[in-house]
């Protein structure tokens, strides 16, 4: 018998921070195929085979109730449980927060290093930002700082930079695109898309380039003829374009800025935008949000008052971006139990920690040593419904269940562990 076919329209893709919501996806039995829109990444993720998976204890198959009970044992014995990875939907994070609050855990997302390169600037000086539809309709100059965004955010250019129409004109808006960053490995500027003025600069020299650009925007004198390998004439040209743009946008992916003190470069960009807004409009667009980083941070903030890297070990929420870094807590041995959550992509368990580990993740998750407990979960937006935030932190989108799945959600798995612990406490 032929499997039943269903065509889903306006499907939200949960696999990067753009959260494109215009995909058409066909289901045939358990198989999903991207029929319209989408990108290489969305196809790879939506079309991955639905794997059979059972919960495991120490690598041996078991049932969900036993896995939940074993996870509860580990957490009950733990003095500082760590909830990390946190690639989950809004409801998954709600469940994590409730459990962490109850048992004195710490919460941190795999993408937090990049998150805090930006958040520290919001907390120290603030910023002027914009959102994807504003970029799509108003932007007349895009400055990309760092790598061309095609790999990390495949449809950014298509959806936000090259629409056929905008609110201000029936024809495509004439837009200048400038990139300050390392040349693509093959030497080409950008693999596809619109013409770009490239100012080549190594990633770790971006601080110099951005600082010089800010000087030039403010019409200060620069004695150098070259900064970070870029001729000052090129930077001066860029400064002039920023000053004469009506709605400039400066975009960067903080995940690319892997050099020490990268937050200071974000701060310089923020200051640059503030300078420009004295006379014209310009706004920042942080390219971020993959694995619902923004949504998980939002939930953490509205429930605890703090962004990620928050701990409940002393009964009250406490936040410190160094103290409560998951990597640091594992490296120092302060965390004595780890709950690793990864519900979106099939990934490997990155943390080779010595502590008892509960993995709550997609069935295709791989590891070198089996964790103490493995609870396979469905992917929000494929196997169950849920919600997530887009990179701009404004738009929260509902994710649909596209097929039937026997797998629980992260929220269900965590809530069962929470309920088991609560029952023991009462008993």
């Amino acid at each position: 018998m032929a499997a039943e076919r269903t065509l889903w329209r306006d499907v939200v893709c949960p696999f990067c921070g753009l959260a494109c919501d215009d995909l058409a996806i066909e289901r045939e039995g358990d198989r999903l195929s991207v029929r319209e829109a989408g990108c290489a990444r969305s196809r790879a993720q939506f079309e991955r085979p639905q794997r059979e998976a059972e919960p495991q204890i120490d690598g041996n198959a078991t049932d969900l109730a036993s896995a939940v009970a074993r996870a509860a044992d580990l957490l009950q014995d733990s003095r500082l449980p760590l909830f990390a990875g946190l690639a989950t939907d809004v409801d998954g994070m709600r469940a994590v927060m409730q459990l962490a609050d109850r048992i004195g855990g710490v919460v941190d997302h795999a993408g937090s290093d990049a998150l805090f390169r930006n958040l520290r600037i919001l907390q120290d000086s603030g910023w002027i930002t914009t959102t994807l539809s504003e970029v799509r309709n108003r932007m007349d100059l895009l400055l990309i700082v760092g790598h061309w965004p095609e790999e990390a955010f495949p449809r950014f250019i298509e959806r936000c930079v090259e629409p056929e129409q905008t609110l201000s004109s029936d024809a495509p808006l004439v837009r200048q695109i400038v990139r300050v960053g390392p040349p693509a490995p093959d030497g080409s500027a950008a693999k596809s898309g619109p013409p770009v003025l490239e100012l080549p600069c190594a990633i770790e020299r971006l601080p110099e380039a951005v600082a010089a650009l800010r000087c030039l925007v403010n019409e200060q004198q620069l004695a150098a003829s070259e900064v970070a390998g870029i001729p000052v004439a090129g930077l001066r040209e860029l400064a002039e374009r920023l000053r004469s743009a009506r709605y400039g946008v400066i975009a960067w992916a903080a995940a690319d800025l892997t050099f020490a003190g990268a937050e200071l470069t974000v701060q310089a960009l923020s200051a640059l935008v503030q300078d420009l807004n004295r006379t014209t409009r310009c706004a920042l667009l942080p390219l971020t949000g993959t694995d619902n980083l923004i949504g998980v941070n939002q939930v953490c903030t509205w429930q605890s008052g703090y962004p990620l890297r928050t701990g409940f070990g002393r009964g009250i929420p406490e936040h410190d971006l160094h103290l409560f870094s998951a990597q640091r807590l594992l490296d120092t041995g302060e965390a004595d139990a780890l709950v690793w959550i990864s519900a979106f992509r099939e990934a490997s368990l990155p943390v080779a920690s010595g502590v008892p580990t509960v993995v709550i993740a997609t069935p295709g998750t791989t590891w070198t040593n089996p964790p103490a407990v493995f609870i396979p979960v469905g992917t929000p937006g494929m196997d169950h419904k849920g919600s997530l935030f887009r990179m701009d932190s404004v738009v929260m989108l509902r994710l649909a269940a596209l097929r039937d799945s026997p797998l629980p959600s992260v929220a269900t798995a965590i809530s069962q562990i929470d309920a088991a612990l609560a029952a023991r406490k009462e008993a």
Partner: protein
Amino acid sequence: MTLVKLAGGRIVDPANGRNGDAADLYLRDGVIVPDPGPGAAIDETVDITGKIVMAGAIDIHSHIGGGKINIARMMMIEDHRKHADAGDGLRRSGGGLYTPTTFVTGYRYAAMGYTAAFEPAMVPANARHAHAELADTPMIDKGCYAMLGSDDFLLRMLANGAEQQAINDYVGWMLQATQSVALKVVNPGGINAFKFNARNLGLDTPSPHYGVTPRRIVAALARAVNELGICHPVHLHCNDLGVPGNWETTVGTIDAAEGLPLHLTHLQFHSYGTEGDRKFSSAAAQLAEVINRTPSVSVDIGQIIFGQTVTASGDTMIQYRNHRHAHPKKWMCMDIECDAGCGVVPFRYRDENFVNALQWAIGLELLLLVEDPWRVFLTTDHPNGAPFTVYPHLIRLLMDRGFRRDMLKTINKHAAAASTLGGIEREYSLYEIAILTRAAPARSLGLLDRGHLGVGAVADITVYTERENREAMFARPDYVFKDGRLIARNGEVTDIVWGATHVVRPEFDQGIEGPLEDYFNRFQTVRLGNFRVTDDEMEDEGRSRLVRHPCRRTTP
């Protein structure tokens, strides 16, 4: 099914004209029921002899959830370091004084005798997020006002000379799609104009690109709300917030509504003159006079109370302008989705500062000079003027002339001298306070079974011991009931409940989805179907029970 008797309280229930008469109240299944008569089986009697009984209080304007508030929390982690609340098995942990976490927001309101609070500035593009935060806000009923008036869709309609009927359909659709209970307008046209680099927008200035004046926007939206039969009038944050001389804009805005019902929010920030050496003066008397003779207008105050807070507003134009006053020195602004914007600027109101001190006095002048308590609501525009936890203090300022005059002596002496406050004799009665904080907001929002203690009303009830110190009295009610359940005792939360979400469901022509879908497909980065927040997702978690309020259309 249990029948609870609240015995011997003094009922202060202005909606039913009751002013302190002693009577018993009976509660069953979450509502107030008639006296079951002699011999009825009472399951529980609570002796409240001589205590003051009011309906649960309702905050008509409090920024308690959504994008800008969460940004404020993220930005102001110092607030959370100073004010942390431990969880205790019953309550979740959290904290923050002026940027409280969602759980703590609910606990504090309930402990203070409030059983509902309304988020007054929900950006439609952020609606799902706002509702997600409110779903995590326990204890109280909630509702959101959708912000329109700087959205490109509306401005295009007005620029293209759209019929009023089409505007009505759009507003109706938007209120339903965003699960809202009222319509908010913030700096009409101004947020959009700021995206085109305009730094101010006068009431009769054509906006950049669209050429639409704020006056036209106010008129169109006031009419839409009226014709759709939405109970609460346009909830309007006028142009020129905080600008000396803006009281004339406020009067002009009243004219712009052409006699239709209008709610002017945080009026204190819109009541400034330009007199005196500092070119900053109170226009409270002039405005109160206009309001007293204009029965179609209601107001809330946005009272400031001295201390550190954070301002969070959809008004990017004004927040950008005020960034130089940021304390501590950090601030953010965001342009949002061809919809609106938001700006977060921390602020410390100082009593030794002339302007801040006069702002304090202006708010109180307005509260005391607007005569009809049914048309003025007690707000601090939380957290913009002060956190909502100052309400008991504010009530004392209104009820206790001696206390008010003592406080007046502590502020900047030039401001005190410039204010008429010291000469105002009026003291609010308990009855009037019950109007301000219960009966009037419920009536204005169309919450027919809230804000009063009549038979059939939802059993949201607050019981106080009468004390001469009104601040102490209102800070720690003896009992708070929500839907008939005891949730707080002596100012402490004793049980956790989840309130309802209030929404309106106006009738409109679904045909508006045609042009809207075209607009979303061509310009937006979200599809229409994904933008819309459905009833199913609201009620999914079993927390956000929807209460749908009928609308009374005035035209076909």
